[in-house]
Every structure is written in C-alpha cells, then in structure tokens.
C-alpha cells in the first residue's frame, strides 16, 4: 500500500509543478481511529500529506460540482480550475455520472485511478467494541486488523469484517475512467450482490414496515448522507423546498421516511454504492437498505450498470416501448 502512496505523492507533485492541474483532491491522515480527511492539495509540498489505504471512505467526487460553480462575486475573470482527483472505482463511476449530468467538464479533470480493496465501515468497527470506543487501530498485514478499545480490551479481526458491505459486493474496484493509474489493478469480487435487499424483502410486509420505520427514526436530519453523496448536487433539495413544502423540519416519523424515500428514489440509476452515505451517517443508519433496493430494481428492470460509460444515457432518461408493465393495475 505504501508504495502506491509514495508514487501518488510523487505524481501529484509532478502534476502540480508541471502545471497540468491547479489542485488535487485526495485523502490525508486524521487524528482519529479509522478516519482520513479529505485533502485538497494546492502546492506540491502539500502532496506529502496524501495517503491511500482502507480508511479512505469519502467519495471525493462529491467535492467536484462546487468547484465548477462560478462564485457570485466573480464574473469574467473567473476560469474553471483544472482539477486532479484520486479515483478508486466507485469515485470514478460517480465522476462519470457527474460528467453526464453536466455538473463537471471532463476536460477540466485529471483522473488518477487507483485500485481499491475495499474501505472500512466505522460503524461495523464501533459495533464490535460498543459501548466502549475504538482508541487505536493497527493494520497488521495479511488482512488482519487489531482493534484497541477505550476499555483496554483488544481484538484481532479480519479486515473483511470491517469493510463496508458494498465493498464486499464491488464489481468495479478500479477506475472505469481515468487519465492515468497508480499501482496494480485490483481483482473484483464476484460474490452475490444485493444480499441485504434479498434478506429484507423476504420478511413479511409488516415486519418490513416496522424495521424501516425504526431504522429511519434514528435520523437526526443532519443531511450528512446527502452532502457526502456526489449525486446530491441539486441547488435546492426537495427536503428544503418551501413552496411546495414537501416535508416539515421536525423528526416526525413520516417526514423522516418521506425524506429517505425521496433521497433513495432520486438515486435511481445514479447510485454507485460507494458507501459514502453509510460512512457519513453519525447515527449509523443502514442507508444501503434503500439505495440497494433501487439499484437492484434499476438493473433488473432496465438493465445495465450505473456509471460505467459516459455515452450511455441514464435509465430514467430513456425508455423502451416494451418496458415491464407487470406492476400496473388492470381493471
């Protein structure tokens, strides 16, 4: 891993010094267990702080749309920056979506692809040591991780036990769109997908409702899920529209559910299952329960995978005359 990291630092410094890019978006270490910080590099000296490992959970593409919005107070003199970005598979797929949605100009990007072996889910780790907290995490090599907790206990676990569930089902660990790559490509897992959706769907309708209601009742409406998501670039989210007002601002359960149903629905054909929302949620809500349902339906009903080609139209922007009508009511 550190070889890739060294190479990354060196390459980013070159790209900045050579004038290929104005800034580079990557990760830096953070002073908290299992966390990294989003790091925007503007000078080659700052490139030394870049890291790349299993703690790099943020979907960096979420930062892109704002970079290409002309500031209000600047008119003619403003030029769009040339942006370098470190892209694991899911990040690159989000970038594809942003390019297709005209949120980000392809020519302004320099995408540095990197193979990813999955990133950690801090909530899974937290559950292993609750109600204590992680105090330190050591990556032992060979896929083993040592967790130190604040109660003084320690335990060794497989890295796979800590990964985001989505990473275990990831079919695109390498960048699908890039200008250059660092390190060796990673081999994709070929396990089954949508395990969580299948398991949830097998419960009775009232069990599902109760589980959904309880899960969503944890929400504190901080909107970290939305803000961490590259797809949520709307200037005004339906959650905050006041005319009409879709949802009140309280924690009344139906309002919380309406928000999460709306958010999941708006992900249709655009969610790459990067897990950024899951990592971001301070309440550890299982947001994949909804997004993966929509993903499964999009794939099974309309075919194709999200974010693998800049040329393919989003599934909700097209139709087939023969689209399924099995859901419709015949009198």
């Amino acid at each position, binding site marked *: 891993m550190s070889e890739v990291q060294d190479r990354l630092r060196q390459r980013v410094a070159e790209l900045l010094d050579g004038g290929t890019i104005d800034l580079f978006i990557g990760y830096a270490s953070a002073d908290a267990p299992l966390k990294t910080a989003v790091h925007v590099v503007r000078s080659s000296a700052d490139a030394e702080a870049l890291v790349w490992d299993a703690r790099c959970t943020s979907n960096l593409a979420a930062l892109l749309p704002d970079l290409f919005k002309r500031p209000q107070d600047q008119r003619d003199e403003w030029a769009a920056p040339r942006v370098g970005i470190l892209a694991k598979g899911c990040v690159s797929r989000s970038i594809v979506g942003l390019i297709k949605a005209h949120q980000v100009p392809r020519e302004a990007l320099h995408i540095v692809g990197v193979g990813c072996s999955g990133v950690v889910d801090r909530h899974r780790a937290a559950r292993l040591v609750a109600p204590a907290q992680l105090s330190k995490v050591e990556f032992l090599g060979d896929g083993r991780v040592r967790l130190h907790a604040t109660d003084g206990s320690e335990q060794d676990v497989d890295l796979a036990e800590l990964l985001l569930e989505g990473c275990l089902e990831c079919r695109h660990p390498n960048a699908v769109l890039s200008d250059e790559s660092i390190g060796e490509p990673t081999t994709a897992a070929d396990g089954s997908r949508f395990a969580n959706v299948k398991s949830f769907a097998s419960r009775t*309708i009232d069990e599902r409702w109760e589980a959904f209601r309880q899960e969503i009742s944890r929400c504190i409406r901080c909107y970290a899920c939305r803000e961490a998501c590259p797809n949520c670039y709307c200037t005004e989210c339906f959650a905050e529209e006041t005319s009409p007002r879709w949802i009140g601002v309280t924690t009344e359960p139906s309002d919380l559910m309406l928000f999460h149903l709306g958010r999941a629905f708006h992900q249709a054909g655009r969610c790459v299952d990067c897990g950024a929302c899951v990592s971001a949620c301070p309440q550890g809500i299982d947001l994949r329960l909804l997004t993966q349902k929509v993903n499964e339906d999009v794939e099974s009903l309309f075919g194709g995978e999200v974010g693998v080609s800049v040329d393919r139209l989003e599934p909700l922007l097209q139709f087939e005359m023969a689209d399924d009508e099995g859901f*419709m009511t015949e009198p």
Partner: protein
Amino acid sequence: MTETTDRPDNERIDWEPRIAAFLCNWCSYAGADLAGVSRIQYPPNVRVIRVPCSGRINPLFIVKALQSGMDGVLVSGCHPGDCHYISGNLYARRKFALMKSLLEYVGIEPDRVHFSWVSAAEGIRFAELLHAVVEAVRAIGPATKMVKRIEAVP
C-alpha cells in the same frame, strides 16, 4: 403542498376509502369525463387531480398523498404510443415501476398504489378501474403507515 386532508377516524365503521387520482389531461381525465357524461356509475371515493401528463407526476406526489392521509393513490395516463407529448407516459412508467416497488419493499401495502392507462374513449374502463381500485383499497383498510399525525410531531 399543505396538509389540509384530515382523515376521519380509522376505526369508524362507516369508513370509506379516499383515493387521490392523478389523471393526465389528454386521456385519463377525458376518460373520467366521458364516464361522467355517459352516466356510468363509479365510486365517489376519488379526488381527481388533473395534470398535463403522467410524466408531470413526481413520484413523490404519491408518497405525499399517503402522508396526507389518502387511503390509496391512482395514477393514470395515456396508453403507450398515445401520449400528447409523445413519450411522457413512457418515462413515467419507469419512475412508477421503481416507486411502487420501493414502497412495497419498505412495507406499504401494494394495493395502496395503482397505475393504469385510460384513454379518452375509455369511459367504461375508467369506471371499472375505479371500482377495482376502491375495492382493493377497501380490502386492506384505512391507510395508517405513512400518515403524518400532527399530534406525533414531537
């Protein structure tokens, strides 16, 4: 959208389902109109909301209607190929397929939410559809799951 629909007591014996029907202006609304002028009886449980095209219907309208206390929702537009705007209904079909599946997945009864095509010439079909929808909703009883209750606002 204001929450002006206050649902009657769910426990009432004389409960009648209330259905929000989003009908496209060019086909389904005209079909409903035809049913009316042809004096074809259909249940009075429906509150019709006329929209320019089924493609205009934000799938969140459906969730919002349930939240506002409607017992069922019907969305209807032109048959494939007949859309006044050529393909609005075909885009809509994809959205509705996903939303219906999502709602069922989280535990909303599948019979709460209905989609169907009705042309301007299908007054009888509209009436039959309404019968079918009202009876389906009647069978599952009053909606409770998504309903927003002001007294539940913390």
